[in-house]
């Protein structure tokens, strides 16, 4: 019984729990409650993933209305994978947030904070679960709206959180509206909103409406996933949001947008359109530009959160690169990159959050001599930093390795060797900014005497779990790789015999 409802449970659970959460008193109760909900969602997502892997895509007709009349939830391996990722990230960041936000938001907002967190989480999961194009828009906006408020709650520490949230709101809304225009055009052309249905009806159609729809959807999602140069909202939003929010957003929000992009590229449109090549060329070009420029900017930032925010923009470039190959290997590599980068960034931002908690700042000077002051946190930062760079035996290495191998396999407008050299040269920039941080932490003496607050276990344990995960995914990667490759195959081949790479 429960099993049949699996595709919808991880969405419904937090959505229903959020208002309940709002009613709880402003102490540690809402956080605990939200943690339990997120944990349950994570368990359900994992069960769904196991189910999808063995039994194929799971369908769920909302309210018993079958497709295409009703809204259908359809979860394939890629969806289940991203869903599990989002849910497990929520399951570690929410417990972390309980103590972390005590310092960072106004106390009277505590229950609202966790309610928003749950809604944001529900929205992200919804985007992944749904098989209905308009539903994607609704869930994107559910998660975005709650994200704006979450970012703005960082205003207790720094009022710039408000302007960051406002910019995010304006750009995010423009992105969403573009997306919705695209959906409207698509609906005009096909008369349906079910993704598979749209795909079926798009076959053989290549006219201006379809192209315009693609352009609008592409641009809208590109804004949401912070594709260079549409990333302007991201650095400030990540920098000034409360640490736990940054950890959660960095590991999920852009990743879900990438997932939505994959869905629209491959499930909805598919390969029969000539303009897809143009889109892939765009991905390649903008991905490479983003990798380089954003990494370069990151090297010269003084704020550690800002450094890693720009690094996020750069890392999205790597994922887009994988997608641009448009091969199962490339998309599989991009999916592995999504998972590994999510885990790595969560570890980094959690560790930064620990420094914010204990020392009270996230600019570079606060990190001086951290290896002596907070050895565990510094260790987590170093491990996660190495994973970001892509040192062997960490998650980052696997993702970069797969990406490079996929580059060799694919036929590309640029030489594979050039691409490989480009990837490693941007990796060097990553060495630059991670190295700067490591230098400050290990080789410089702390400035001044600040009282260092002891890091509570509730923050340390999630941080260490995620850090350990970055190493685990680098050492025992085969499971994830197989999963991602199966997911990519499923994504590229819609089963209708028409889309897909084959």
């Amino acid at each position, binding site marked *: 019984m429960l099993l049949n409802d699996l595709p919808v449970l991880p969405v419904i659970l937090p959505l229903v729990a959020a208002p309940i959460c709002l009613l709880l008193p402003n102490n540690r109760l809402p956080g605990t409650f939200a943690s339990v909900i997120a944990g349950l969602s994570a368990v359900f997502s994992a069960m769904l993933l196991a189910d999808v892997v063995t039994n194929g895509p799971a369908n769920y007709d909302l309210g018993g209305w079958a497709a295409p009349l009703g809204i259908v939830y359809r979860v394939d391996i890629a969806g289940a994978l991203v869903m599990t990722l989002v849910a497990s990230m929520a399951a570690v960041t929410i417990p972390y947030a309980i103590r972390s936000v005590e310092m960072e938001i106004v106390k009277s907002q505590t229950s609202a904070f966790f309610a928003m967190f749950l809604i944001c989480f529900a929205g992200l999961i919804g985007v992944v679960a749904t098989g209905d194009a308009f539903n994607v828009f609704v869930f994107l906006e559910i998660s975005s709206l709650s994200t704006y408020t979450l970012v703005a709650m960082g205003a207790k520490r720094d009022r710039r959180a408000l302007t960051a949230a406002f910019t995010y709101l304006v750009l995010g809304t423009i992105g969403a509206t573009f997306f919705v225009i695209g959906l409207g055009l698509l609906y005009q052309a096909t008369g349906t909103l079910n993704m598979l249905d749209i795909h079926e009806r798009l076959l053989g159609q290549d006219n201006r409406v379809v192209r315009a729809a693609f352009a609008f959807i592409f641009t809208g999602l590109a804004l949401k996933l912070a594709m260079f140069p549409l990333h302007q909202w991201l650095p400030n939003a990540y920098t000034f949001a409360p640490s736990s929010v940054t950890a959660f957003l960095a590991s999920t929000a852009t990743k879900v947008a990438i997932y939505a992009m994959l869905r629209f590229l491959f499930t909805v449109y598919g390969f029969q359109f000539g303009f897809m090549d143009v889109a892939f060329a765009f991905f390649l070009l903008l991905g490479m530009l983003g990798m380089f420029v954003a990494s370069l900017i990151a090297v010269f930032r003084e704020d550690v959160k800002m450094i890693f925010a720009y690094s996020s923009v750069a890392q999205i470039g790597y994922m887009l690169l994988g997608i641009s190959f448009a091969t199962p290997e490339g998309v599989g590599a991009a999916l592995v990159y999504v998972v590994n980068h999510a885990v790595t960034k969560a570890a980094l931002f959690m560790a930064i959050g620990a420094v914010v908690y204990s020392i009270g700042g996230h600019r570079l000077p606060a990190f001086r001599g951290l290896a002596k002051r907070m050895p565990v946190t510094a260790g987590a930062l170093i491990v996660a930093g190495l994973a970001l760079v892509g040192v062997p*035996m960490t998650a980052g290495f696997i993702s970069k*390795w797969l990406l*490079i*191998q996929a580059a060799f396999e694919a036929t590309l407008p640029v030489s594979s060797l050039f691409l490989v*050299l480009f990837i490693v040269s941007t*990796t060097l920039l990553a060495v630059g900014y991670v190295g700067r941080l490591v230098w400050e932490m290990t080789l410089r003496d702390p400035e001044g005497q600040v009282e260092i607050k002891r890091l509570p276990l509730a923050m340390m344990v999630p941080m260490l779990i995620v850090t350990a995960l970055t190493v685990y995914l680098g050492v025992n990667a085969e499971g994830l*790789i197989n999963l991602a490759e199966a997911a990519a195959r499923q994504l590229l081949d819609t089963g209708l015999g028409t889309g897909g790479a084959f």
Partner: protein
Amino acid sequence: MGALLHMVSADAALAGALITPLIGLVFISALDRSPDAREASTLATGLITLLFSATIFVAVGEGARPTLTLFEMLPGLSVTFSVEPLGALFGLIASGLWLVNSVYSIGYMRGNNEKAQTRFYMSFAIAITAALGIAYSGNLLTFFLFYETLTISTFPLVAHKRDEKARAGGRIYIGILMGTSIGLLLPAVICTYWLTGTTDFVLGGIIAEHIRPTSAWTAILLCLFAFGTAKAALMPTHPWLPNAMVAPTPVSAFLHAVAVVKAGVFGIMKISLYTFGAETLQGTIASDIILYIAAASILIASAIAMTQDNLKARLAYSTVSQLSYITLGAMLANRLGIIGGSTQIAAHALGKMTLFMCAGAIYTAAHKSLISEMRGLARVMPYTFIAYIIGACSIIGLPPMAGSWPKFFLMLGSVDRGELILLGVLIVSSLMNIVYLMAPAVRGFMDPPSAHQGTEIAEAPAFCLVPAWTTAIGTVILFLFMGDLVRYLEPLVASL
């Protein structure tokens, strides 16, 4: 002794050699408060590691090939250790000289009251693990992993003084080493994997089966590997080496003789034997190019060395020159070239270590680092300078010091390959060696002491002299047992 070296199996010794320094690391960091216990654990770690690597050395000599796979990330992509004679030799040199160096650094660090000594010893312990990891690596990926670890772990050592000068030197050090390794070596590893589907080290090479030796890929790969392994200081990737001179002397000794540069040339030798294969290399234009770049490095670095007044800087450029001998041997890719290059790894390690420890002894005793200030110094500290002369003679290649053999082999190897120009290069370089290495000794013994030189200068303390003399005597012993070493390395060239 023999029984001691057969106490554990070679496989167990391999695991032991890699783990012991890490266990030592825990002790060193835990004993931050009591320097005596900390230094004792450093020495104990060094001794045990040496025992393990000696066990491996003996076992490999008897034909064993211990292997150990830590884990497999992807099919064909694993962290694996597998020991062959060259690696066993490098491992023995590294762990043996690490022990000597530890004794020396304890004296040096205490004598000069350096700060942050715990961090210093911790970095040393990680560095030796990395060096052993490189020596025993079973594939390119493992090699790359430990190569990077070595760079990172020696960085705090180079920048130890943490003033502006140390920071600048450290930046160049890590910039060049990291830049070349990630920018060139890593793509080389990736391309190799893509071309062959494996990164394993196999004697005779893995490339030849997949691509023609004359193809552009071979040339590209060889250049990527040769310049990517910047620790070998092949020009123009050498500037990190003189810049690393800002480090305390034991670090310089360690960098220049034991771990870092030797890891580089060992890597080049290993990659040419085990990834390309000597036979593949022999016929390629690419190896000719690298061969001549190495020859040019030998001469240019020697010429620069002659202009340096700072003794450590002079030794650094001498190192750049001497390392290119090994690259040269690897690129000759014939029997004598490979033997010459491999034995040079051992001979140069002992010789250069002696020289650096003497330079450190002079600095500790007289606080002098410029050659022009060393007039008559040898008269008050003769033992230091005699050790220096022994080391210098070994580097120059005078019998009965170890350095004479590799040069002899390399000269024969060049003739074998028909490259008479190289023979000339080697002879000219030896002459230049005499000029720049003997000058300080000549100054020390022959010149009258400068007028304002105080009388308080005395012979260097024992902790400096004993290690220096140990390695100096080592060069003589190695000269006598060179035949055994050549026989030991025979499997490398058996097919040629």
